[in-house]
């Protein structure tokens, strides 16, 4: 798959899944804008890895939950690379996945839900609005939002996180209907538990083993596993797909 000449903006790409997606696109020759919130060292390492892989990359700090910052990020990417062909929205509000320490529903106040909805849907809204003028002008473009397989099968009820990601699924489907006639595709990738990432480091072995036992491919995902389906959805091979959700979880969820 050749992404030479294409520009990809990835939110939350300093480490973990976002960094793996960035490397995936860079390996196929893309120019990659590596957005990060705080960890400049990791973002710089991702940029280096992208360069080594054969792409071009720049690290760009921005808080994508802030619409103004999102617009600034998009403008800076366009300044650097001329356009944006693919937006991958992978960032989410800080969250630690720990079945033992998670908040029970009656301990979860609305502020926690709001923080996740801001990190997920508000950020997706701001980013989509910011990239849209250029994509509409060129009548092409591709938006991929990263959600989670928990929206389909919440094995651990992370109420605030999964509710926000479920909203992102609905948001993306509506957007796909709206933008399809204008040549812009919108799809979703829903990974299962991805290990290791900063957010999943607290997940214990027992849960991993329980998930593995119910996963036909008998392992949990690595960040690199998520990159392939994202690249596929961004490629011409998926040119007739929009509003779709790809589950990347070894067959744990099937639909």
């Amino acid at each position, binding site marked *: 798959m050749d992404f030479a000449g294409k520009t990809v903006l990835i939110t939350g790409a300093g480490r973990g899944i976002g960094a793996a997606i960035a490397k995936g696109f860079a390996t196929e020759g893309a120019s990659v804008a590596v957005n990060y919130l705080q960890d400049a060292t990791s973002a710089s390492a991702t940029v280096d890895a992208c360069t080594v892989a054969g792409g071009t990359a720049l690290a760009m700090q921005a808080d994508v939950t802030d619409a103004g910052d999102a617009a600034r990020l998009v403008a800076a990417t366009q300044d650097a690379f001329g356009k944006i062909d693919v937006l991958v929205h992978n960032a989410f509000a800080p969250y630690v996945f720990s079945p033992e320490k998670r908040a029970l529903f009656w301990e979860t106040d609305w502020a926690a839900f709001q923080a996740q909805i801001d990190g997920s849907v508000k950020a997706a809204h701001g980013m989509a609005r910011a990239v849209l003028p250029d994509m509409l002008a060129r009548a092409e473009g591709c938006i991929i939002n990263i959600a989670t397989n928990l929206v389909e099968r919440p094995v651990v009820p992370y109420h605030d996180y999964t509710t926000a990601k479920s909203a992102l699924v609905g948001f993306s489907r509506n957007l796909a209907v709206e933008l399809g006639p204008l040549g812009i595709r919108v799809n979703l990738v829903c990974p299962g538990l991805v290990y290791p990432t900063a957010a999943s480091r607290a997940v214990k072995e027992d849960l991993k083993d329980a998930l593995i*036992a119910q996963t036909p*491919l*008998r392992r949990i995902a690595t960040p690199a596993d998520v990159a392939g389906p994202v690249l596929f959805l961004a490629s011409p091979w998926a040119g007739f797909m929009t509003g779709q959700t790809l589950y990347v979880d070894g067959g744990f969820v099937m639909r």
Partner: protein
Amino acid sequence: MLERACHLPGLDPDALDWHRLSFARGDTGPDIAVPVLGPGDIDRLAAHVRDNAAARLRAMPVARIVEAIDAVIVRLLDRQDPYRRKMEQMLPAVTGYDPEMVRLGLTRYLMTFRKPELLRFLAEDFPNPAILDGFQPLPKGGYGKAFGPPLLAHIWAGNVPGLPLWSMVCGLLVKSGTIGKVSSAEPLFAGWFAQVLAEVAPDLAECLAVVWWQGGESAPEQAMLGAADLTLAYGSNTSLAAIAGRMPPGKRLLRFGHKVSFAMIAAVALDPAKVADTARRAARDIARYDQQGCFAPHVVFVERGGRLCPRSFARYLARALDAFGHRFPARALTMAETASFAAWCQQEEFTHDAEVMGDAHGGWTVSFHNAGQGFGPSCLNRSVKVVAVDDLANVPGLVAPFRALLQTVGIAASPDELFRLAGLLGDAGVTRIAALGDMTTPEAGWHHDGRCNLSDLVQITEIDARAPPAADKLAFYDD
């Protein structure tokens, strides 16, 4: 930051020369220095730990020693502890093993040295552990007390991180002064244990020295072997034979040489509901520490007649090894290891007519033998032979010629079969039977290579049953 390995009570570290060890597996290897010690230094250390053991350790109740070891283990189980952090950071870099595998392996291993396990460990060899503290009545009459050697020496191998802990703990429990030589392949763990011991029980840490010298250097080794009353040595059969040849007359040596382990899977474990789990458990035994420990299986014997045939099992095993490799990647092989891996695969395929399955990067290999071409070591690093047999009862006969090398057998079979096979295998020289999946995690107090860990080290001093009545005649209260 430079990490100084070893533990040298009584010596001034700044007065010594330090040798840098290089571990260039990754981009930036850790910076580790080991002390350059001459025979004079070894003599001084040996005298220091022997004297301190005599003055402090030998009078200490064994229960207090257990408490101190437990306190060290609790520290090392705490992921926030600075020594635990160093272990998680440096042991993967030194050994090349996957960091997650090391992290989980350390916890699983250290858990078997908590106080309840140490008490079981003692009870296994001493029905009344107070025999280590004072004379206790013996069932036959009279009294007995167990004495560990005043100075116990250890020569450790470095194939798996943390290995020295077993024998260090044994030495402390029998109240011996201990001097142990670490391997260049993993020089860190033993010294860290001693350093944490120095923080939680300074008295005990004066009775324990951890040293290093370049393998093959004879002068410091001679000094250690000469000073110690008993030496425990771990390593290849060649290096153990060489050490045995250099033992001073009249000194005891206990050898723990390389062993070969294998697995056996009965037909009952091969139905559609069980096969995936059976394969996953076998893969775990094969892949942990990349098969470098002596507990890891080289061969899996699979019985015909199950709902799935042995060839199908081999394919499930291959996929399970592949999945394990995604979660815990195999370490990068050296040039020599890559060459031996390739040669082994070729030999399997062309000489033994095996069906060889492997991944493109040499991360694992399964070699399937349909005609039962027998038993032998694999080339390690997650390579395994799967051998189809008509009846598992034939396996003990196949392995019996390797009697001296046999150690652990992982079995997936029904209870009656488990005990029937265990009897045949024990007769063939096997010393440990485990459930498939538990091969690499022995229980506390298991009889290492069929021996008694603690009672092998001690001398029992007996007071003859007739001695106390005779002494009564000399008592001030004698009428």
